[in-house]
Every structure is written in structure tokens, then in C-alpha cells.
């Protein structure tokens, strides 16, 4: 099937097998290897991206379901060389060790802050329940998310990532189109 997906602001048109998962399309076809796979039961959240402004586990979405959609990955968060406040907070608070869960954690954290701009500890823990980290014990991740909340402008959530039509690059490097 032929699909067109905008990923991190660039449009890509490709032939994909109907069974291809979005995460595999991102990693293998588009070279978006910042997004990773940690499990095969949709439990770990390592693959979390934003699809049309909502966080999704990209291992449980088919690439064809993203046709015509906009995807933001961890690679598309920094703007003009500036880290996203959540990225910055993860760094400042030592919220990562091996970093494998980090792309998913960051994407999920942004989503949860969009829903709740000033979450308490309990709300952060609840919002991250679907993302597993084996290294950090979560304490610094929780701290980072709350720290980021203090630095984020309202409206800096996933909707802000959607690219206006005029700004979109139509053909991405690395796509098949």
C-alpha cells in the first residue's frame, strides 16, 4: 500500500506492507532510529511517538493507519537548536541512564503535561504507568516531568508540533516517493 506520512515535519510517501508496524516503518524505512522497540506486547512504551497530537505506542499502530497523518518523534522535538523543555528537564534531573526508555518517556511526558500542565507526583506516576524503565527507579523521571512543567508555556504540548501546511517539506530524504 502507498501511504504518505509527515514525520518530524517532513512528508514521506512509501509503499508499505499492510502488516508493517508504524515503529518499523519509522526505523527501517525512514531511518528514524531514535524511536525504539522494547517489547512485543505493547507494555514498555519505548516506542511512544505522537500521532496527530496524541501519544501512541507506535508498535501497536500499523503504518497504514498513519496514512495522511503527522508523526512527531523524539528526533523532531528540538526547535532551532533548542531542546524541548522536557528534554532539557530529563537532562538536568538525570532522568535517564542507558537512555533506551527515554524517547518513549519524553514523548509520553509531553502528552501528560498537555493534559495536566501542573501534575503532582501521583499524577506523573500515573501518567507514565505505561512506560517502563529498568534503570532509574523513576524518581528522577518524575522530578524531571514536574520540573519541565514549570518551564513549559501553555500550548507547548503535542498540538504545537503539528506543522502548518505551508511549512511542510513535501519529499523527505530516505523515503520511496
Amino acid at each position, binding site marked *: 500500500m502507498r501511504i504518505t506520512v509527515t514525520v518530524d515535519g517532513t512528508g514521506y510517501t512509501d509503499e508499505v506492507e499492510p502488516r508493517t508496524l508504524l515503529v518499523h516503518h519509522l526505523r527501517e524505512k525512514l531511518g528514524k532510529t531514535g524511536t525504539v*522497540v522494547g*517489547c512485543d*506486547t505493547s507494555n514498555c512504551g519505548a516506542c511512544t511517538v505522537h500521532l496527530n497530537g496524541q501519544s501512541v505506542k507506535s508498535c501497536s499502530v500499523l503504518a497504514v493507519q498513519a496514512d495522511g497523518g503527522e508523526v512527531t518523534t523524539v528526533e523532531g522535538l528540538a526547535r532551532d537548536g533548542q531542546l524541548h523543555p522536557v528534554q532539557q528537564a530529563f537532562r538536568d534531573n538525570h532522568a535517564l541512564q542507558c537512555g533506551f526508555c527515554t524517547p518513549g518517556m519524553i514523548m509520553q511526558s509531553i502528552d501528560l503535561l498537555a493534559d495536566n500542565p501542573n501534575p503532582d507526583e501521583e499524577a506523573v506516576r500515573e501518567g507514565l504507568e505505561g512506560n517502563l524503565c*529498568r534503570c532509574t*527507579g523513576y524518581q528522577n523521571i518524575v522530578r524531571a516531568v514536574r520540573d519541565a512543567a514549570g518551564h513549559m508555556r501553555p500550548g507547548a504540548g503535542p498540538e504545537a508540533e503539528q506543522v502548518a501546511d505551508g511549512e511542510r517539506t513535501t519529499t523527505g530524504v530516505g523515503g520511496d516517493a
Partner: protein
Amino acid sequence: MTAMAEPEVGRARVRKEDERLITGRTRWTDNIALPGLVHMAFLRSPTAHARITAMDTSAAKEMPGVIAVYTGDDLDPGGEVGMPNAWPITPDQKTPRRPMLAQGTVNFAGEAVAVVIARSAAEAEDALAEIDVDYDDLPVVLGVDDAVADGAPLVHEDMGTNKSAEWIFDSAEAGSGGDVQQAISSSEVVVTRRFRQQRLVPAFMEPRSVVVDPTAPQLTMWSATQVPHILKTMVAMTLGLPEHQVRVIAPDVGGGFGGKLAVTPEECAAVVVAQKLGKPVKWTESRSETMVSAHHGRDQMQDITISASRDGTITGLKVDLLADMGAYLGIVGGGVPVLGAFMFNAIYKVPAYRFSCTTVFTNTTLTDAYRGAGRPEATFAIERIMDELAAELGMDPMELREKNWIKHDEFPYTTVSTLTYDSGNYEAATAKAMQLFDYDGLRREQRERRERGDRVQLGIGISTFTEMCGLAPSRVLGSLDYGAGGWEHAAIRMLPTGKVEVVTGASPHGQGHETAWSQIVADQLGVGFDDIEILHGDTQSSHKGLDTYGSRSLTVGGIAVVKAAEKVIAKARKVAAHLMEASEDDLEFADGKFTVRGTDTSTAIQDVALAVFAAHDLPEGVEPTLDSEAVFDPENFSFPHGTHLCATEVDTETGRVRLRSYVCVDDIGKVINPLIVEGQMHGGLAQGIAQALFEEAVYDEFGTLTSGTFADYLLPSAMDLPSFTTDRTETAATSNPLGVKGVGEAGTIASTPAVVNSVVDAVRHHGVNDIEMPLSPMRVWRAVHEGDAAAGGPGAEAGGGLGSIDSAHGGAQ
């Protein structure tokens, strides 16, 4: 004069590693793509023990995209290749051959029996279903007690036994203490317990992955491994390759926790397949494959007896272990429980001690190193039985510990298991922890809740632990029959522009070595933190090393870095003296500058580096280089210690456990970076607490792993853990120039018994004196309501650990 620069060591530097990791500019092994790359997928045995009577791969070979299908006999016609076991714990240890792909029999469910190579990973996976294997089932051996019973069926028939080895330490024989049997029979109080260390899955988040490129004379292997150097040497030895034509790269590695301390059949098969096809190959496992085929950890039955006089003075300690090795021995294998042998006596003055360990085969995934490796098991048993002894004596458990521990003025202290603890201050760590925890206040609340028969009871758990870190003095490893040494290598390259490259043999996979090593070198050489680059994990740039495990990187590898820096300075001093026309003895080195004492004539080490690069004007006989390397072999282990206190609320009507507070004060010696230390503590605590409350690898009676996915194996999520209060005391290690002790495993080692002690303490008045791990609500409830001495049994099923799992779906109630 400028002011002395603030030292880098001790600063809470944010990590150098993070910028790439938070922006997705990562280099996981699975990211690697090479021209013509083909993909491997393994067919794994669904049955735990069977003879393979027939295998038909012809249909699979016809599948779209398939390039080849190989069986064990195809890869190793002579049946000679076996994965290495580097630690034969006794001369007569039985070590069955562990092939790349099963040949003749399969010995655990998940063992690979065939491999498909196809143009895409999906096509390789598809073709697996077309391979036809006939299995003739054999009796399945599960559980150490059954495995060693008379007449038990055998995992490896040709060995004639399920026992691999028996390893014994006896203080009477070693001359380090008395005869334990005598001590026990003449003591006023004797407490005996049987503790079960359930089987755990290391569960690093990045699944294992390997890429092999055979297209150049030097074969290159990328692997998600903790041990690229060991892997290089072992792959060469195992497969008979010339070692100098193998290069191993561990790029970004997503956690290990001992689980990637391995030389795997999949890695070796990838090399053989790549060579056969002359093409680069890749294998990345699914999580379900990790669960059944990457090694597990723990899994011991511990029979422990402690004796004491009525006043609480310990008189003897006897430990008998049965350790489940699974179907084969991994690279460390039986060495894991043996490491524990030195830690059962912990921080206590034990006059008589005997330890025996029998390593046993069963038809399960093999067990090997998992965070702490032997030491958490030992610490659990001693800290649990200290609480039981206190209960027996009617003493406060902290008082009992204090009565028996080594006092701060008794260091250095040689223990009954012959280790010499260089330093420590258990009193100081304990005092600080008790105060942060409000020990007295919580005891008061506990009394009140008991008196009013509150449904929710409060428990307080203590763990005053130590561990041996910094594996290891090579001579000690030699005396234990380990196959290698315990040194570490470092090199420093002074570049012409004044920048510095540091090569380390340690191989980080989340620990933050790039940051910590930069801090160390910045202080040693007086160069900027950002002017230092740390090179690691590629045997071509970092050609020598023994990698990262056993909390050894800083205490061994970090010291090698210091030694290399000292050599750089010694070389630079000669040149600086020559350039400034002064005598070497008149030079002082501080903040990166050589200064002629008593003058303001100075030259920076960067200027010396440039002068050496130009080499126009060097003193007679001086080589034009400042580059230096060092190999550090520690004299002794290091011994971090700490006091961990855990308060739990136990709902006696539902069996649910809530962690109310967790305080730990650890003494890990000098700290390079407190931010990193705190992170290590948090992560370690999470894993140790998870053992106590949530995790277990469960097999059914057929030898099928029923907790084989992240849906069933309950890694704690953010919802399942509290925030921890972590603090430190600082007693410098005397065994190394930085005074460091290591922190990687402390949290995991200490926390498990603190949690279990706390829960047992909460319900002890219901007649409970033990609950088997993980402490699922069902087990806790049963213990409370049936007054079971040792509530094990039901609750062990997959999903049994978390109260949040819906009972209608097979979880705990």
C-alpha cells in the same frame, strides 16, 4: 595567581551522554544497517526436554526472501563448539557442552534449534513456521530439590547426575574461625530457616542484538553487550578464529544488569553464518525471545542456621545452598553463588562459619549474573535471619545488629570468610538513617496500630549490608579458579591542540562513565571537562579491557585512568623542565600548569603537548609523546556499606503491601558525581524492591516459562514505587587513591531484605515468621490468616506479584 579551579570530582555534573540520548541520536546495535545486510531469526524449542528425532527445513528454504536455513549440524558438523564457562568452581565441575543450536536434544524451552537467514527480518520470521521438527519428549527436571532427589531424571543423561559441582568453605579448615557444628551444638539459641531466592529476569530494556560484518579481513561484530573485550577473546577461542582478526564494538547499549555479561549462542551463530554467506548479518531479538533465552538470575534454595548466646552474640553461621543453574553453565555460572560465600557473614563478627553450595542442572533457561550476582542472595539470607534471631531473643533487630557488627575503630578487619574490610563506619550510617527515617516515631506508631488492632499494620524492615565490589584482585580470582584476571586498562592521548582522549577498558551501558571519567581526568590533568573525550566499547580503539560488571568500573577502571594520568604528568614534567630550563625537581604541577617553584614562570600541559607534537626541542632521549597507559590490578576488593530502612503498611484483610517510606544511607566512599550516584541508588533500589514484591520467572510443570512477556513478568512501573530518601556517609576506601568503593549494585543488594523484613515485622504478631518472595497480596493474606510459618505456594503463578492485576485474568487476588 588565579584561584584554584573548583575540583570536578564531587560535582553534580549533568551527563555528557545525555544530549544524544534525549534527542534520539543514538547508536543501538539494531540501528546499524550495512549494504547487503541479511537478517537472522531463530527457531526455538517449545518443549523443555526432548530428543530431536527429525528436522525438515526444505519448505522454509522455499519461502520468499529466504537465503538459507541452518541446523546445529550445519553450523557445527563435528559437534565441538560449546559456549564458554569461564569459572569452573571446582576441578571436577561437570560442564555440559552448550551448542549454538541444539544438537540431538533440547534442554530448555527456548533453546534455539535452527536459524533462518532472509532478506528481511519479517521474512526470516515467517519462514520459522515452515520448519518441521519432531520432538520425542523426555522427562522434565524442575526445581533444585527434585533435581537432586534420588532417582531424579537427568537433564544431561551422559553426566549421570544433575549436580554440577559442590563448593565448600569452612572456617575451621581455613583457619579463619572455629568449627561451626561445635558452635551450633553448644549455643543457647539456634535459629534455622529455609529461604527461597526466586528466579528473576534481568530485563534490560534494550533487547539483545548483534551484527556481524565478515566482508573485510578483520571481522567486525557489533553487539548489545556489557563485555566487548571478553566477547572478542571468547568468540575467537570458541570458534577458533584468529583473535587479531576480530573486532568487537559495543555501541550504545541499553542496560545490562549482568544480563549482557554473556557470550551467547546467537552471537557465535551470527559469526558462523556471516562467514558461511560472506554477507553481513543481523539478529535482533523480540522481548519474548529475551525472556526465554537470555540468562536469568538468582534461583537458590538457602538453608541457613545461625547460633547465638542469649545476650545476642553470634556464635556460628552455617549455610547450605542449592543453586539452580538451568540447563547449562553460562560464562560465570557456578561462580555466582560462590561470590555470595564471602558475604553471608556480612558486617558481623562471626566466630565460626561454614558455607556449602551445590550447583544443579534443571530443564530451564540458564541462570548467571544479575545485578549483585551472589551478594544479594547472601545479604538477603543473613539480614532476614538476623531479624528472626532478634525475634527469637526478643531483642530490637537494630540492637542485635549493633551488638554484632564490626565497630568503626576495628578496621581493617579480617572476616571469618577471609576478606579484609579496609574501612567502614556502620554506626554513622545507621545513626543518620534512623534519624531520617524517624525510627522511634515509626516504632511508636507500630505499637499503637497493634494495640488498637488496626486493619492496616505497620512494619519496619532493616538491612545493614556490605558488599564486595571492584571485581577483582587477579590473585583472588586465580585462587577461586576463575579463568581470567580482574585488572583494568586505561590510556590517555594528549592531542596537539590540547584536547584529551581517554581510552577505557570499562564498557558503560548507562552508568555515565563518559561524565565521571571526564571529571577524574579534568582534575588529574587540569584540563577542561569539555576538552576530554572518553573512548570505549570498541576493541579497535580500546584494545584492552575486562569490561563492566560487579561495580568494578570506577574502583578498578577509574583507578587505571588515574594511573595513566600520573604517567602523562611524569612525561610532561621532563619536557616542561626542559622548555623552562629548570630542574624537574623545581616544578610544581597544579591546575594544568607546571610552575617553577617560587617564580611565576609556568607552562600549561597543553603547551607541553604541542611542543611534544612538534618534537623540535625535546630533552635528550625523550620520546615525542605524552601518551600513556596503565593497567590497574586492585590489591583488595572495596566494601561499600549502608543502612536501609523500610516502612510498609500491610492491609491484613487484602494482603496488600504499601511502601510507606524507604530511607537509605550508603557509604560508598568518595563520590565522583553525586547525581550519578543518586541515580544508581534509585535504580538499584527499584530492582531489589521488585524482587521482594513483584518479580518472578515462573515455570509450569512442563517447563514452560509462563511469565514470558512484559505482560506477565511484572517489572514495576512508576505507579508501583515510592520516592526514596537517599543519603550518604563517607568513609574513604583505603585500597585506592580515589577512596572510591563502587555503587552499581548497592541498592539492589540491600533493599530486598529490608522490604521483606518490614512486611514480616508488620504481621509477626499473627504468628508469621516468613513469607516467600515475591510478596504477592495472596501470599501475605495467607500468611496472616493461616498463620503460615512460610507462606509460599499459590501466588507464584505468572502475574502473582502485583495486587493491581485483575484476578479474573489469572493474577493475584
